């Protein structure tokens, strides 16, 4: 299948323009490197966790970030949160640059972005009452006095589906799903513009995951929130997102509307990721009459310390050619508005003939 014929099916797919279009977050050429002490005596090495990543997020939109372990998705989320200082590039929220902000601006920027963490057991202080945990962001940011914060915490408990009578309980008295609700209430307490959710349901039991995903969807509708939803599970990311960025080894390799990513993935890695889902439940999201091709990649993800010099996916790519070993593909826009970093987009057919 040529790239061209794959593209036609892209144009035919449905788009859901429900987002305002007003840009809220812009990330430009973001780089995050970590020093690595490889072995005593050897030269200092660097791990490039995020490598030249650019994207923007509109108000009310959900941008999903999907990738496997070591792809840099969590580091990216932490940079946007201001938890990691980027090694290069810029992160701007409503035009204010986070990387060069003064302490005071930083504080208000931190309020604008709040995070829901993966592990609801580790992200709540076991020695504090959940009511205090939820009230703290309001006190820190001066949004309310102690009495007001408690009243608001009770309201937030109600919003996330917890009984406000539980405010004085400790985290260990709650189940995993309930703790994640506490974490969401805490994130909402700062009245953020952007909510970064890093694998928010991965630690939860399957039957509880749906509760949290439904809650996040409902909250977004109700409070007009903007989400960055990070997960290794592409089905969950697709469910929650308007647009999806697929990451591999620190790069965004493909970014497009969620519907396009499923209907006509162009990057061989996206195709492989979708083809790796061992899911027979409903035809694996393929269009009627088509069956998604099962693709088993060879080898493992290379270590971010020993990155391939050209295209990062080349050593595992089923359709790699000579140029892929020599020249790093640029991150460019295709005619249909999707971004891709591949010399031969659309050359791996996602569906069985």
């Amino acid at each position, binding site marked *: 299948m040529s790239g061209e014929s794959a593209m036609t099916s892209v144009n035919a797919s449905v788009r*859901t323009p*429900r987002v305002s279009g007003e840009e809220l977050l812009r990330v430009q050429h973001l780089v995050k490197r970590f020093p690595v002490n490889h072995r005593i005596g050897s030269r200092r090495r660097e791990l490039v966790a995020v490598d030249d990543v650019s994207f923007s997020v509109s108000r009310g939109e959900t941008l999903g970030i999907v990738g*496997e*372990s070591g792809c840099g998705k969590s580091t990216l989320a932490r940079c946007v949160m201001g938890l990691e200082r980027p090694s290069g590039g810029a992160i701007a929220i409503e035009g204010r640059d986070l990387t060069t902000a003064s302490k005071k601006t930083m504080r208000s920027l931190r309020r604008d972005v709040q995070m829901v963490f993966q592990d609801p057991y580790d992200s709540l202080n076991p020695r504090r009452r959940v009511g205090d945990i939820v009230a703290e962001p309001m006190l820190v940011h001066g949004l309310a006095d102690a009495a007001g914060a408690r009243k608001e915490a009770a309201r937030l408990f109600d919003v996330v589906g917890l009984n406000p009578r539980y405010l004085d309980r400790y985290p260990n008295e709650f*189940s*995993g*799903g*309930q703790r994640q609700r506490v974490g969401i209430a805490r994130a909402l307490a700062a009245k953020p513009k952007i909510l970064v959710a890093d694998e928010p349901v991965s630690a939860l*039991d*399957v*039957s*509880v*995951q*749906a*509760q949290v*995903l*439904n809650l996040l*969807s409902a909250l977004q509708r109700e409070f007009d929130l903007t989400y960055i939803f990070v997960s*290794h*599970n*592409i*089905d*969950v990311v*697709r*469910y*929650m997102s308007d647009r999806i960025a697929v990451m591999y080894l620190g790069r965004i390799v493909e970014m497009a509307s*969620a*519907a396009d990513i*499923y*209907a006509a993935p162009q990057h061989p890695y996206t195709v*492989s*990721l*979708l*083809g*790796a*889902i*061992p*899911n*027979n*439940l*409903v*035809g*694996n*999201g*393929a269009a009627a009459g088509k069956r*998604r091709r*099962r*693709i*088993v*990649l060879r*080898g*493992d*993800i290379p270590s971010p310390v020993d990155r391939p010099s050209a295209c990062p996916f080349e050593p595992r790519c089923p359709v790699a050619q000579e140029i892929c070993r020599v020249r790093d593909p640029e991150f460019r826009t295709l005619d249909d508005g999707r971004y891709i970093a591949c010399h031969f987009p659309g050359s791996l057919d996602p569906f069985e003939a």
Partner: protein
Amino acid sequence: MPDTMQATARAVGADVALRVESLTIDIRTKSGVAHIVQDVSFTVAKGEFVGIVGESGSGKSMTLMNLLRLIDNPNLNVSGHVWFDGEDLLALPAKRLREIRGGKIAMIFQDAMTALTPVYTVGWHIAEQLRAHRALSRRAARERAIELLTEVGIPSPELRVDSFPHELSGGMRQRAVIAMALACDPKVLLADEPTTALDVTTQAQILDLIRRLRTVHGSAVVFVTHDIGVISDSADSILVMYAGRVVEQGRTVDVLAAPQHPYTQGLLGSIPTPGASRLTSQLVSIDGSAPTPSEQVVGCAFRPRCAYAFDKCFTVPALRPREGQADDHLDACWLQRQAQMDLRIEAGS
């Protein structure tokens, strides 16, 4: 037990690899007896792939571990039968059981790192199986180990045979553990969430490997997972466990096409199907969370979370086939049986 003789006769049937009968596991704790697994029965045909699906605390791993009596705890009380080759593994003397463990029934675990001893090489681990069960010489065992590493797709096996576990990636480690398990050509392979700790593309590699080996070696597979999607295209039949009991079992196609138990329905509805979006479909969420083994629920354990619960549900429902469904598709739910029940009582009185 009166039906033991009959069961034995059935268990040695030519096409049965493993037959579990009324497996029940209790744990004595300070606060009383906790029922971890209750009355679990299933048959694994030769070469069959059986999936056991359940959430944490459902008893799925305890079921699997106790098939080989792998948990040695004086507070654990295991009853029932596990028939293999005409013998009841639960009644077998320790010495005889040792011959079966690893020799005829092998097991792979979720965390390959803890399944390997960090101070020994990969080759040593595989050779140990061969030396214990096949009495191979050191050299022959090493050669066979290299063959096995090749078979499970480890690149440059003649070098990797001397690698230590920490020198391998997660996917490679799981392959090494699978090579260990295959060393003695087992009739049954027990797998406890072997892909859960792995990345999606690595998971696909391992599932592919297990399926291929099953074809080559003809081993039956019992695969425990929390993710029904993982086994949806590999398993021939599925058992759905909830709070220590099997609530539904049958051929995978039947269970996925027409789940009968409200828990199975909820479980399938709670995962986003590939391509589904929050804009067009809402996930079915099951309220609350599963009971812990120490919480005793009267009647059906799913009752407190079940949207359809009614007075009948205060009695534990038995696993039975349902009218209009395949004979081997069983579920334990009272729903829509009320009318039938009433008729039966009338007829009996």
